[in-house]
Every structure is written in structure tokens, then in C-alpha cells.
């Protein structure tokens, strides 16, 4: 199965990660719009790592469930964790001076989105997109 991993340590890695994600999405036959959706979600998730956790990793891989084909994004970091996930998923909430569209935006671009976070331990995010 197709799988690409990017370690995220600085903003240069953001570009590399989203380029890889786009390649995987293209290879899996996602539409141009979906490729942009996926790459943009990766951009938001990777920037969150750089902003809050300093370092982490993003894995993008092919997904198959019966007849359905899709793509899965796995984000992992050992950062401070998210104190209030619900708040962080709210539009316009930001502790970095951004638009507060990162997490909620990425969630809307994907079909499923699960955040698993523990204070002081880190954050794991699993997001999936199915082919239309």
C-alpha cells in the first residue's frame, strides 16, 4: 500500500509534506479539487505542529475498505497537547494570532477527523478522505 511519511520540524517541511500528500492523492486518482483539499488540510495540520509542538510527523497513506478507496492522514507529535479540543476546533479561536481556521478548516476539508490529545504528552490526529 502506498504510504509516505514526512517529519515536520520547520516551515520548509510544511511544503514538502503537502507536496507528498498531493502526489499520493493524485496517484490514488483523487479529483483536482480533492487534491487541493487534502494538500490544504496537510498545510494546516503541519503548521500546527510547527507552531505548537515544534516537531512531529505526518503520514499519508492509501486506504481501502471494501469497494471504497481513500486516503488517510496520521499526525503525531509529542508537544504540549491541546488543553481544550472543543475550543480549538471552534472557528476563529487561535492562540497564535492566526485566523483560527486551521483545525476546524482541516476538519471540514476531510470526511472524518479524530483528535486524540493528552496534556504534556502530545497529540494524534487521524483524518480520512474517501474518493467520491
Amino acid at each position, binding site marked *: 500500500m502506498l504510504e509516505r511519511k514526512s517529519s515536520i520540524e520547520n*516551515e520548509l517541511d510544511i*511544503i514538502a509534506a503537502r507536496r507528498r500528500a498531493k502526489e499520493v492523492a493524485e496517484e490514488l486518482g483523487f479529483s483536482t479539487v480533492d487534491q487541493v483539499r487534502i*494538500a*490544504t488540510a496537510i498545510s*494546516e495540520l503541519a503548521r500546527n505542529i510547527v507552531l505548537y509542538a515544534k516537531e512531529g510527523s505526518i503520514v499519508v497513506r492509501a486506504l481501502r475498505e471494501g469497494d471504497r478507496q481513500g486516503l488517510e492522514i496520521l499526525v503525531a507529535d509529542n508537544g504540549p497537547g491541546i488543553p481544550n479540543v472543543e475550543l480549538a476546533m471552534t472557528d476563529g479561536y487561535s492562540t497564535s494570532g492566526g485566523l483560527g481556521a486551521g483545525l476546524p478548516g482541516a476538519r471540514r476539508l476531510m470526511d472524518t477527523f479524530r483528535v486524540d490529545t493528552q496534556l504534556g504528552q502530545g497529540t494524534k490526529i487521524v483524518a480520512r478522505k474517501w474518493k467520491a
Partner: protein
Amino acid sequence: MQQQAPILKIDDYWIASVQGSLHDQDVIEFKEALLSKIMQPESKGLVIDLTVLDLVDSFVTKTLIDIRGLAKLMGVPVVIAGMSPPIAITLVEMGLSLEGIDTALNLQKGLDKLRNTGKER
């Protein structure tokens, strides 16, 4: 940087074409370069052409909103031109509709828009 986002001047209108993939640092430098240009007193307007940009995330969106806000303070109208359908769909789905920012289908139409607002004033 200069190659990725050249800033040109036609009559007294500034034209900036953003190309390819921009790093966050590039985006910040681009914003500063733009602001220093449009601060020049003869500036009549600014078109930011996104035709060949690969994606617009919340960081780029914030930068565009910032540029437009600062330009407005200086009395310089801004038009965003040439956004592609996939980027527009993605932004709207994220809830980033760039409310209040002027848009145009292409560079030429963006310039026309600026010239028309100039006439009205």
C-alpha cells in the same frame, strides 16, 4: 523570493504575481515588500494575481486580509485576481470567504476594476 513573486508597476498600479509554493517566510517577505511599494505616494492600486499559485491555506488567507487592511488604511484599493476553482471551493469549505475583498477573474479585469474605482472617486 523575487522570482517567486515579482512586483511590477504599470501606470501607477502595482501588480504582484504569486507563483508556485510559498514558504511561510516567503509569504511574510512578500507582504513586507508589497507594503513598502504601495506606500509610495503615487500608488493608485494593487492587483495580486494568484493564477499560478498551487494552494491558499489559512496563513496565506490571513496575509491577504492583512495586506488589504493595511492598504485600505493608506487609501490604496486591492483586487485579488485569477483564483482557481479548486482553491475557491477549498477556501469556502474552510469558512474563509475573504469577505469584503475585491476579486477579479484575471489580471486585466483586476486592473480594469481598479481604473474604474479610480474614476468614481
